[in-house]
């Protein structure tokens, strides 16, 4: 199957005073269409940085990221923001909700920005709202919700646009184990039913076990790779 995402010899370097610091230190990685990749690794190992580069939210210092075979480095700002709007659903570590919008409005916002708001797409969004268990909170403002509920809004917002790639940064970080399981089953459904490609950064092994493949980052490099389950990709 085709590679959905390809990361080729990517470095991300930050200045720290006079010294240079490699948040990513030469990473190469291929992710197949419809694959569920879990990314583990200690705090500061570069997980979020990697996710941001794949989601075209940031650019590598050197190396290239390909999505659907197209190098992001060749694209202008318009094309990049189109990729962000239409191909990528981002579940952020800090939920990034707009405080003045209700849960449902937050969830519908990306559809509206992309000009994709229609009865059909909004119906799907409402299905997602139900699936993440937010039906009773859909008209609440972020400040009127718990951390776990805001987390669900962030997840629903990412799924509502039916992106072909879902990038999730600690999507179950604030949730109890039963709710985590529901959310992870939902992500797994996205993969199984809609063949969405999922890259999920996660701390705990129990959640990482939802991946077909688990990689571990250490000091900005891939430290190890575990092929967990690949039968559904063959």
């Amino acid at each position, binding site marked *: 199957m085709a590679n959905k995402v390809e990361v080729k010899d990517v470095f991300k370097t930050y200045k720290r005073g006079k010294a240079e610091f490699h948040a990513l230190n030469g990473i190469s990685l291929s992710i197949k269409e419809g694959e569920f990749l879990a990314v583990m690794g200690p705090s500061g190992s570069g997980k979020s940085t990697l996710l941001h580069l794949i989601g075209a939210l940031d650019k590598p210092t050197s190396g290239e990221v390909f999505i659907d075979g197209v190098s992001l480095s060749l694209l202008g700002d318009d094309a990049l923001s189109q990729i962000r709007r239409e191909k990528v659903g981002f579940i952020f570590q800090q939920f990034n909700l707009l405080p003045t919008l209700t849960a449902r409005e937050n969830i519908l916002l990306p559809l509206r920005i992309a000009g994709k708001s229609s009865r059909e797409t909004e119906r799907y969004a409402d299905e997602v709202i139900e699936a993440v268990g937010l039906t009773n909170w859909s008209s609440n403002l972020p400040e009127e919700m718990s951390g776990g509920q805001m987390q669900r809004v962030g997840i629903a917002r990412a799924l509502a646009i039916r992106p072909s790639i879902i990038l999730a940064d600690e999507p179950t970080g604030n949730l109890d184990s039963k709710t985590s399981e529901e959310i992870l089953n939902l992500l797994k459904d996205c993969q199984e039913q809609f063949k969405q490609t999922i890259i999920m950064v996660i701390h705990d092994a129990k959640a990482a076990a939802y991946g077909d493949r688990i990689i571990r980052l250490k000091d900005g490099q891939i430290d190890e790779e*575990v092929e967990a389950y690949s039968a559904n990709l063959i």
Partner: protein
Amino acid sequence: MSVKHGLLGLLARKPQNGYELKNAFDEIAGGFWDVNFGQIYSTIDRLVKDGLITASSEDAEGVERRVYQITQKGIQEFKDWLDKPSAKVRPLRDEIFVKLAFMYPFDKEAILQLLAEQRQLYLAKMAELTRKKYLLSRQGGSRDMLMTDLLLDAALFHAEADVKWLEHCEAKLRGFESIQREEALENDEIGLDQ
């Protein structure tokens, strides 16, 4: 869970032959506890001797097979066991503990390698169990399924704890290594001073 009570519980569901019992046991134990046929059959013999189960013969395509059934006494024994809280904390019976005890501190690299391999094995196993759980969750919920799901959870929570412990070991071993190196350096410096 003991093999004895595991088998009683399985036979309380329905009569089964040894082969079926072994499969069902593996299913419950979630692949984290290897029992071989030898253990299954020796436990069966003991259960028959104690009158907790009985054996009868079944004819499967010309081959005679023994099918086991739980007795009233067996059901009582199983119920009594179910009602008693487990006082024992999970034993650390993994080989890795024994290896660790003998290897450290002679060969740190080897032990780090062993810990990493063990962790990877656990992750792969956890992924397999998670896959089972996911498929189960998509079939909708009967009572039996809920129980299987909870047992899979137990195996996963235990495995997660083991993975955490393995990571913790790695981090501590690495830390210890650098302390030793610093000590060695300090000793060298002292040597130079003299």
